[in-house]
């Protein structure tokens, strides 16, 4: 038996394929683009091919993410809160607080002692501080978004971003560049601003952070600068699983196995 989880996000479409013991056979991340269904088909083809599995051999598909209802052949659609929660508890057992920053959503999930979801919060009204925000800032800085983590490491403290509105922050970044502020310092300022905003969301569901084991998932967790800034803001270590961007798809596949694995 094989179980497929598909996470259709705004920026990327992720797939994870498990065997009947819950072991990961293959996983992939492809850009969602403008056509969800094409991205879903591509992600599915890629994991099946990588694992050498035929589509008919997939016992159940569980979809998640913003486009979860567009996945044909799904046995269930489950929200990304539940799937990320399930995924992180399998990858990093004992996690009591998860921060997930994806393309246009950021979320914080607090767990009870058994690993069940106790509470959650998501970003309010706008997508500031998410993957799309970082993409826009990288464009303004004329660097690739994947380079932000490295630039943060080379940077120094000093630059402060006063606005988290994507449009205003972009103007502010341009002004800082014009003022001769080093790119690394601007990147650090951006990451601190994201961490500060995320802390506000986290505190709504976990006023007392002491002793909590914290993990991070989502594509933005690849950015070591954001992870460092979050760790500083929260005052504790932030653990990141080896492939943070497939946590949702992995969790969906685990749910498929639990619900439909017989």
């Amino acid at each position: 038996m094989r179980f497929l989880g598909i996470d259709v996000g705004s920026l990327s479409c992720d797939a994870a394929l498990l065997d009947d013991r819950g072991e990961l056979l293959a996983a992939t991340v492809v850009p969602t683009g403008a056509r969800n269904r094409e991205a879903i088909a591509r992600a599915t083809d890629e994991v099946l091919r990588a694992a050498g599995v035929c589509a008919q051999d997939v016992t159940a598909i569980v979809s998640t993410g913003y486009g979860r209802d567009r996945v044909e052949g799904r046995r269930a659609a489950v929200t990304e809160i539940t799937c990320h929660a399930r995924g992180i508890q399998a990858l990093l057992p004992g996690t009591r607080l998860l921060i997930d920053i994806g393309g246009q959503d950021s979320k914080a999930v607090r767990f009870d002692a058994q690993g069940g979801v106790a509470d959650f919060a998501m970003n309010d009204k706008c997508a500031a501080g998410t993957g799309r925000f970082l993409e826009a800032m990288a464009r303004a800085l004329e660097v690739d978004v994947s380079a932000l983590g490295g630039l943060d490491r080379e940077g120094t403290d000093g630059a402060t971003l006063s606005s988290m509105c994507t449009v205003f922050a972009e103007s502010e970044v341009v002004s800082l560049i014009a003022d001769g502020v080093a790119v690394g310092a601007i990147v650090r300022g951006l990451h601190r601003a994201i961490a500060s905003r995320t802390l506000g969301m986290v505190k709504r569901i976990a006023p007392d952070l002491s002793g909590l084991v914290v993990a991070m998932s989502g594509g933005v967790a690849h950015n070591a600068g954001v992870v460092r800034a979050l760790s500083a803001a929260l005052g504790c270590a932030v653990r990141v699983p080896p492939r943070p961007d497939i946590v949702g798809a992995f969790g969906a596949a685990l749910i498929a196995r639990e619900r439909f694995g017989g």
Partner: protein
Amino acid sequence: MIGEYFAGLARDIEAKLAAEPAASSARKVFALEVARLGVRLYSPGRPVAWCGVLAPFDLLNGVGVTSCFAEFVGAMLAGMGAATPPLEGAEQAGYAADTCAYHRAVVGAAMQGMMPVPDFLVATTTPCTGGLAAIENLARLFRRELLVLQIPRAETEAGVRFLAGQLERLARFAAGRAGTALDAERVAAAVELSNLTRGLMVEIYDLARKVPSPVGNRDLANFGIVVPLLMGTQAGVDVARATRDELAARVGDGKSGVAGERFRLLWVQNRIQFPNPLLKLLEDEYRAVIVVDELNDVTWEPIDPADPYPGMARRAIGLPLNGPAERRVARLRQLATEYRVDGVIHPCHWGCRQGTGIRGLVQRGFRETGIPVLNLEVDCIDARSFSEGQLRTRLEAFLELIAGRPRASA
């Protein structure tokens, strides 16, 4: 446009009820009486007052003045899918887009000639200063006299006397605008009807508490906030009686409002007024039912028809939206316990400082009781800000969360 809408709605419901009396329902009776109220508001030659939500509508009905709270117009426009032009009009006139859209819509509607010119206006100092400002704006636009009821924040004998005196002066003033002297017997008759409606509402909420609840997600939507407009009239009694009878019949037949009721929810403050798929999602996919709205289950002691003003004053002062947040949070917790809810949905209407300002206190209050709360970021009137996917994800994740917990009604 709105007047024609009400007239058409009333005609349609009347025709349907005449053609098929067996298809009558409490909600149709409610909609018909609301439409008839709308027709009265928009008919020339009748004395009309635009008011704040805590105005004494039974008293105004008793002196022959058709009255309505201004936010009702914003809700109706949103329900008709027609709120955008007045919202844009208000914004173009300088109203900030992050102020309450109930008030923006009604000010825009007045500016665009969509509201009848009233004979006078009655503002109330609670529950929100935004509402007071909206009525003050309307008074300026319409160039009509404004009375402001100063509602004390706490119930003291001095406070009751203070407000009772204002209510009596309002009654005399309103009767004069209706072209009559204040008739104590007429007011007493209205109070008798108001008390009857109140008694039926108490019964309705008792029925709604049952497990499973006989209410569906739409049965009591906006009920507790709109029925007061009909207080003091036979229409109010008819609506409440039809609702009570329908719910009692369901209980008698062993039927629940949502088939196979699974989750019981408390809805804080206002419903989302424009058409949206969230209630259907709750019902169809999760068998979740809003068993209580914060703005329903608001009742008070019967009012003495021979001396109505102190009772009306106590009613206004005692309403949960008046007074400190602590009282409101305590009442929400009480509702959650009495109705045995599994979760609380707090829509945090954009621009409502009172609603969003209390958000943290509500969440903390429920956290102490172990009842989960979902804060939805939504504008209940302005559909331009509605993001279905975002809200759907939050709502579904919340229902998945409470699905993993023991049922409060078990």
